[in-house]
């Protein structure tokens, strides 16, 4: 079946405007269907608010009341601080472990056990230790953000082509040179994938922390609004999180493409031309 589908002639390219128009039309159709379903009471408006009232909720939460901003800020703070601390720790520790055979051998069982443990299970323990508020929230995000970068960095470093390691050795490279010129760049694609995974779970981690124990943040706001059956406002928070997640993910993708340029054919041509120009201006002769 799939083979047949793959053999079909690709659709002719459409203009960007045309594509936007199509997406907009589908989006409006979906929203109208929702609105109509609510009006006809096919969906219970108590739990599924009218799209129009969600829109109105956006206006209220962001502009007239403006109360979402501080919560959004607190959640973002926990996400950014927790992600930075967790991933720096994860990547850093993985580098130490990756550079030392002995550390790797002795630490491996612990890492495997910790990796298999659901991170959220440690949540209440952390809250007991740090109390309510931003410290425990940040600590949970940090914990959630530690493992993917750690495991990926370690994997990236130990899966480097053995011949390349031997080549560095035969050139008499120091440990630092081997690390900075071979191991780290080789591991970068995996490290970046780990960071993206961590970022994806960071938002979730912050929310769970806010659900179980916090007094401010988007998760708290969602709990409060659903508790008072103010569903339109709760949906505003949820949609805000969707948007946040989307932009964070796209941002990380862009950074990934920028750093790991050699995976992208178009980019390597541009980079090659740039380096050629730099060579000219340095040596002043045509290569």
């Amino acid at each position, binding site marked *: 079946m799939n083979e047949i589908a793959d053999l079909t002639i690709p659709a002719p390219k459409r203009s960007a405007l045309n594509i936007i128009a199509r997406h907009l039309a589908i989006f409006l159709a979906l929203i109208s269907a929702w609105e109509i379903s609510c009006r006809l009471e096919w969906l219970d408006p108590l739990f599924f608010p009218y799209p129009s009232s969600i829109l109105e909720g956006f206006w209220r939460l962001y502009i007239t009341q403006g109360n979402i901003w501080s919560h959004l800020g607190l959640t973002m703070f926990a996400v950014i601080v927790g992600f930075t601390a967790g991933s720096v720790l994860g990547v850093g520790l993985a580098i130490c472990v990756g550079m030392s055979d002995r550390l790797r051998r002795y630490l491996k069982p612990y890492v495997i056990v910790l990796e298999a443990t659901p991170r959220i299970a440690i949540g209440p323990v952390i809250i007991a230790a740090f109390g309510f508020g931003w410290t425990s929230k940040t600590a949970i995000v940090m914990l959630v953000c530690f493992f993917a970068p750690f495991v990926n960095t370690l994997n990236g470093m130990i899966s480097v082509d053995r011949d390349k390691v031997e080549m560095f050795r035969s050139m008499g490279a120091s440990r630092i040179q081997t690390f900075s*010129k071979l191991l780290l760049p080789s591991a970068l694609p995996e490290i970046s994938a780990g960071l993206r995974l961590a970022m994806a779970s960071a938002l979730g981690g912050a929310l769970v922390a806010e659900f179980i124990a916090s007094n401010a943040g988007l998760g708290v706001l969602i709990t409060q609004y659903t508790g008072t059956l103010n569903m339109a406002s709760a949906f505003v928070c949820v949609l805000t999180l969707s948007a946040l997640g989307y932009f964070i993910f796209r941002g990380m993708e862009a950074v990934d493409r920028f750093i790991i340029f050699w995976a992208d054919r178009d980019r390597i041509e541009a980079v090659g031309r740039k380096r050629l120009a730099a060579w000219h201006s340095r040596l002043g002769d045509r290569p």
Partner: protein
Amino acid sequence: MIPTMTVTKGSATDGQTAVISAQNVVKTFANGSVIAVDDANFQIKPGEFISLVGPSGCGKSTLLRMVAGLLERSSGQLAVHDRPVKGPDPSVSMMFQKPTLLDWRTAIENVLLPSEIAGRVTDSDRRKAMDLLELVGLKDFAFSFPAQLSGGMQQRVALARLLQTGADILLLDEPFGALDEFTRERLNVELMRIVSEVNATTLFVTHNIGEAIYLADRVFVMTPRPGRVAGIVEVPFERPRPPSIQQSPEFNALVSQVRHTFGENV
């Protein structure tokens, strides 16, 4: 530059200083239960091209890695420039079957890697790297990344990098083994020209008998279980040689001689 490589033949111990010398070199694995190289003895003279030929498991790569200082020998004496091999030596440079290029570096930056590792890169290092890329026929691809190069071109870059080290002993571990027959033949011709030009002593590992004879002054025939040098076949042709030499009766006689050495020992 060096017009002819008048190859000195005769026995390996004719008084001339050896660049590489091995005496009773043994390498065992798994606590001595596997003998990878058994009692290797040879002397290699400056500028000589030696092929190590044999089936997989005959210890040819192990022997090469010991000369490179990447692998410790279990017993015996092994010296490079009269210095006992204790680890990687700046006068020795090795090339692998895979190009082992760094994907995030352009061809020229890959060639410059040995200079970078040795210290600060000077403009003369840069000029030398460009000259070497020209020598391997890749000057126009100096700013291409490995992903933009074919397998053969990548190995040429690796060859240029090998020469950038300034080492006078080149160790090549089946360098063109992963390439197609046509590319491989062409690169062998170029390799012969290049090592003559830079006047390097070369150890070339291969499992292809024709290739081994075509390139070498002497062919070390190696047999497995335990891996040992079963015989040394002298190749009397002057280098560089035209590819057509491979069709000559003398060449075929050498092929049968190598095969014969295998036959006696397998």
